[in-house]
């Protein structure tokens, strides 16, 4: 207004008002003609500019948030890499013998965990800030829409003239957010008509008197349109956040190369930090378990294998002891199958020269078949024999030439006695068998 008044000091005010009224009439006539043909479905250039101007604070807030998120992402990536290196070092150290370094790294891990917690708090604060900014932006949009409604009603005659007179009310009424730029004061052109808010009280009455009330009803669609636009913008922002979260989840599964938006990358960095924190906690648990296992005595072996085999545990242990204590005669150097054939050959060469009692037994089946009962087998139960007596019993049986070395004597220990099974020479009298058994009993008692 001042600039306009200064640029044209010699223009009389009556002339200006008359010219403005003429221009407004011309515009109204033109709009009536246009509205008589068809209703416009898209907003005019001035409306777009107003919407853009209205969304400008939100855009700037979002840009600021994106920038801060980029910085946070860079810091998080660096922190994540450091934590991964520490985790690897801890895992390697946990398996080694460097306990002191492990303790130092454990302390460092605790510090990193604290840092992570602080970082998490900051992230929550940022999210709260974003929520607040969005809410404030929505409020401003509503205010803007209200003002636009009122401004259009008042400034509608000046819009078709091609002058940017519609920006002046926004400048004067819209309160820019602290830190936001708002509408630039110097860059906005001054309305040529001089019809601003400062002259609202003076010129509005004249305009209202000129325009009939029914002409404002032409712009009734502006209100639902702007409301729909604001709601759509808010919905799009909400959708963007949700899609970013989904992208983060997808990136956690497929890798970070599929993430596109900066906000998605930021959230992905957050996820990486949380994953690294989980890895760190797991490593710390391992370290704790390792230290605890070094202090704890060795746990007894689980009895699952013995139970799975269906064998009594006592028998298994006794058999194991028997194997360790069993006195094995010196093994001959001859393999058994090769050694058996010449004897058979010898026997077949002169079958009539040997008595039937000394003939070798018929060939048996191979492995996996039960041996047929031999009449030379002796089984005796020796009560009161303990584990120490088994060695003595085995020694007696090994020293007795009447007892076969193969198959070896077998001892089975029960809770009350030891059962001994062995073989003796064929044709051994029963008295000698009993004498062998008695020797075993005497050795125990």
């Amino acid at each position: 207004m001042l600039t306009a008044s200064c640029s044209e000091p010699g223009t009389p005010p009556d002339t200006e008002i008359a010219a403005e009224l003429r221009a407004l009439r011309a515009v109204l006539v033109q709009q009536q003609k246009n509205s008589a043909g068809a209703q416009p479905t898209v907003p005019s250039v001035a409306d777009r500019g107003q919407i853009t101007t209205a969304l400008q604070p939100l855009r700037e807030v979002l840009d600021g948030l994106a920038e801060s998120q980029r910085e946070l992402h860079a810091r998080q990536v660096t922190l994540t890499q450091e934590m991964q290196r520490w985790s690897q070092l801890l895992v390697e150290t946990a398996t080694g013998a460097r306990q002191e370094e492990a303790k130092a790294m454990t302390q460092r891990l605790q510090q990193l965990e604290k840092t992570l917690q602080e970082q998490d708090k900051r992230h929550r604060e940022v999210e709260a800030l974003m929520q607040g900014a969005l809410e404030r932006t929505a409020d401003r949009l509503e205010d803007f829409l209200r003002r636009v409604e009122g401004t259009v009603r008042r400034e509608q005659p000046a819009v078709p003239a091609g002058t940017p007179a519609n920006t002046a009310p926004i400048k004067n009424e819209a309160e820019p957010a602290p830190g936001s730029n708002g509408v630039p004061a110097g860059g906005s052109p001054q309305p040529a008509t001089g019809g601003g808010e400062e002259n609202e009280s003076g010129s509005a009455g004249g305009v209202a008197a000129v325009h009939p009330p029914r002409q404002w009803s032409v712009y009734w669609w502006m209100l639902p349109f702007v409301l729909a636009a604001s709601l759509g913008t808010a919905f799009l922002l909400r959708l963007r956040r949700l899609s970013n979260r989904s992208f983060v989840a997808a990136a956690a599964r497929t890798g970070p190369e599929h993430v596109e938006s900066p906000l998605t990358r930021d959230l992905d960095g957050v996820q990486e930090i949380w994953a690294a924190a989980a890895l760190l906690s797991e490593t710390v648990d391992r370290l704790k378990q390792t230290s605890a296992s070094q202090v704890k005595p060795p746990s007894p072996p689980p009895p699952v294998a013995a139970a799975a085999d269906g064998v009594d545990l006592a028998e298994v242990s006794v058999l194991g002891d028997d194997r360790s204590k069993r006195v094995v005669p010196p093994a001959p150097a001859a393999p058994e199958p090769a050694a058996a054939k010449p004897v058979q050959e010898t026997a077949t060469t002169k079958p009539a020269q040997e008595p039937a009692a000394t003939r070798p037994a018929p060939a048996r089946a191979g492995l996996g078949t039960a041996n047929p009962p031999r009449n030379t087998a002796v089984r005796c139960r020796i009560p009161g024999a303990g584990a120490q007596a088994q060695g003595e019993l085995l020694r007696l049986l090994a020293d007795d030439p009447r007892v076969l070395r193969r198959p070896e004597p077998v001892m089975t220990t029960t809770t009350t006695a030891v059962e001994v099974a062995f073989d003796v020479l064929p044709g051994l009298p029963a008295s000698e068998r009993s004498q062998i058994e008695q020797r075993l009993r005497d050795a125990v008692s």
Partner: protein
Amino acid sequence: MDHSPDLPLIVVIPRPERGGSVRLQPGGCELVLESVRGGYALLWSDGRTSRRFALGLLDEGRLTLELRAPRLPVRVITRDVISLVPGGRLRGYLQVPLVPSLVWHRDGGPPSILIELPPRELAAEWDDREGHSFRCPSSLHARFPMRSNEPCAVVPVVLSNPSTTVASPPHIPLQLRDAELSELRSTVVVKPRRLRWVGERFAMDAPRDGVPVQP
């Protein structure tokens, strides 16, 4: 008390008088027959273990201590590793322990084995394929006779390898009979054995009649 240091095949054990004893030393063992009230007592010891037997004998008949051949086939494990090239031959002597047995000879009746005292060197085994057998170690001697305090039989063996592969037998199978045991130069010998390597085992030819083969 009678003392018999030699190792004859058959030793007649005289009946000791009541309260008396007869002592025999077949090889490294010691055998004492005592006449006690109600019967006879036989005490046997090999230096490590001792066994006591109670015998009820008749006045008619005689009691002998005989060295008998093992009743089961014997697998002789040589202390020397034997290798025969294709077409090669090897001669030597093996020693197989004999089993001192107390035999009762009844007038006009077959002998009866009362007690067998198998030596420790004879380890009895039972195999799934071949049944019962003895296993004993021995060196492959090159000279005859060889001195031994144990009751054993000397078995001349001739090993040949007619196959096209090198023979390295794990053992030498033998089967002795009581009838072929004979005394020669203060030892007990048997007829020589000729064994042919037929691939993974030895096959025995018919023994030659007469004295042992001089290597």
